[in-house]
């Protein structure tokens, strides 16, 4: 038996709980001996770690609630996580495979977490891209609440910066931002009605330029 053939049989040997050390190949192959020892060690450690790492459903619920609260998790995630969570009583029989499963579960959870964590950003980026494309093509899509909320957040932040720099100018910027946002909104509506209207497209372009100017003037200048 060569190493490849031994590796192929290894999972079945672990699952059957047989004495792997008695295999003839191990007597002549120090590499496979080391591998078996390592796997045995991992399986044993997994058994020890299991009680500490098997959280109660309440913990999963709390994690799920927190993720949902931060907009990271999805409502359909909880059952999946619960299904993936192995039951304690199965662990002694699963042996090293259970350890591997635990690692996979952790990896899967980490992967999912990081993916969902990056999702709002990529979603936001895609919205910005969509918005930019809209500006480039000048054919606005249906109003996007998320985009307008983001814009509103940006405006709020801008106004707080203006207030910090010069409190008396806050109302000036607030009033003008409101007017520019109206301009953008009306120009978008107009382009939506007639995407071929060059005039409306010019107004939309100009409306965005006006807003860009307001942002530039409020943020890039420092009088202190």
């Amino acid at each position, binding site marked *: 038996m060569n190493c490849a053939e031994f590796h192929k049989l290894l999972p079945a040997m672990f699952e059957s709980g047989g004495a792997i050390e008695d295999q003839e190949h191990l007597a002549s192959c120090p590499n496979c001996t080391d591998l078996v020892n390592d796997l045995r060690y991992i399986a044993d450690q997994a058994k020890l770690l299991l009680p500490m790492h098997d959280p109660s459903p309440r913990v999963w619920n709390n994690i799920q609630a927190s993720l949902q609260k931060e907009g990271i998790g999805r409502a359909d995630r909880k059952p999946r996580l619960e299904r993936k969570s192995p039951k304690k009583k199965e662990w002694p029989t699963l042996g090293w495979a259970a350890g591997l499963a635990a690692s996979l579960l952790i990896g899967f959870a980490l992967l999912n977490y990081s993916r969902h964590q990056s999702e709002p950003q990529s979603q936001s980026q895609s919205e910005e891209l969509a918005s930019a494309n809209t500006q480039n093509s000048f054919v606005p899509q249906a109003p996007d609440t998320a985009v307008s909320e983001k814009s509103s957040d940006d405006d709020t932040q801008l106004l707080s910066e203006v207030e910090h720099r*010069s409190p*008396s*100018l806050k109302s*000036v*910027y607030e*009033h*003008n931002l409101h*007017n*520019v946002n*109206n*301009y953008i909104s*009306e*120009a978008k509506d*107009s382009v939506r009605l007639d995407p071929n209207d*060059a*005039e*409306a497209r*010019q*107004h939309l372009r*100009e*409306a965005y*330029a*006006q807003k860009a*100017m*307001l942002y530039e*003037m409020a943020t890039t*200048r420092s*009088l*202190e």
Partner: protein
Amino acid sequence: MFEHWKRQTSGRHRATVCAMLLTAATVLSVCISLAAETRKEFRYTVGPGATVSIVNENGTVIVRPSTSRQVSIATILQSPKVEVDSNQNGNRITTRTHVLQKTTADQTRVDYEVSLPQDANVSVDSGTGQIRVENMQGNVNVEADDANVDITGATISVVQIQSVNGKVNISNAKQSRVLVTSTGGNVQLTSVSGPKISVKTTSGNIVFDGDFDGGGAYLLMSHSGDIDVRLPSNASVDLSARSVKGAVETDFPFQKSPHPAFQISEGRAFAGTSNSGASSVELRSFSGKIRVKKQ
């Protein structure tokens, strides 16, 4: 006691005493305000094409040409809570107001009076107050939040103004490129001509009074602001006007364009030529009115 004093003194005497007290109070307040004022002056010598930048939070900035290569920047500070620093790097001079601590608008006020060679470029960045630039031939760049801007007599220069809310007046600018973007402030151009004139506002009104001379490209554009144009009968323009939602009115004797760039809907758009149509004039508004009248 006051009643006693009133009884003892005649009406005329009382009036004299009151006037004296009033005068004393006025003199005292003037003295106090003068004492708080600080004057600071900077002088530099520059070569051709120098750039002078002024950054000020609140106050008046007046820029005038000098007859020498000297730059003089005179400042009046209203309180010790602001300071002015100025430095020269080669042909570039930057003078800046620093607000040292949060205080009232009056106390952050610094007034500038700048004289510089006529060919110098000038840049003014101001929060509130008044900006006035006279008779310059270099580039004029103004950024203002809520300051009124007055540019007069600019020749062969590039005048670029970005304003959030203040009024912008430009007059007697010849052979200049004039680019104005104002969100909420009204913009008035009187006798302004050049190869490229562009005024864009959101809610500010635009008034153009002049002959659109020089065979240039003129664009006046607003969102909700009205656009009023008054031009003489000898104006040589190829004019088009369109408001997406507002009205377009004209009593000027144009020859209607046979091939306008857009579809003419009555009362909303107009395209016509006067004389040889040397200058291109585009008037665009989204919901504001456009009126074109004869001077």
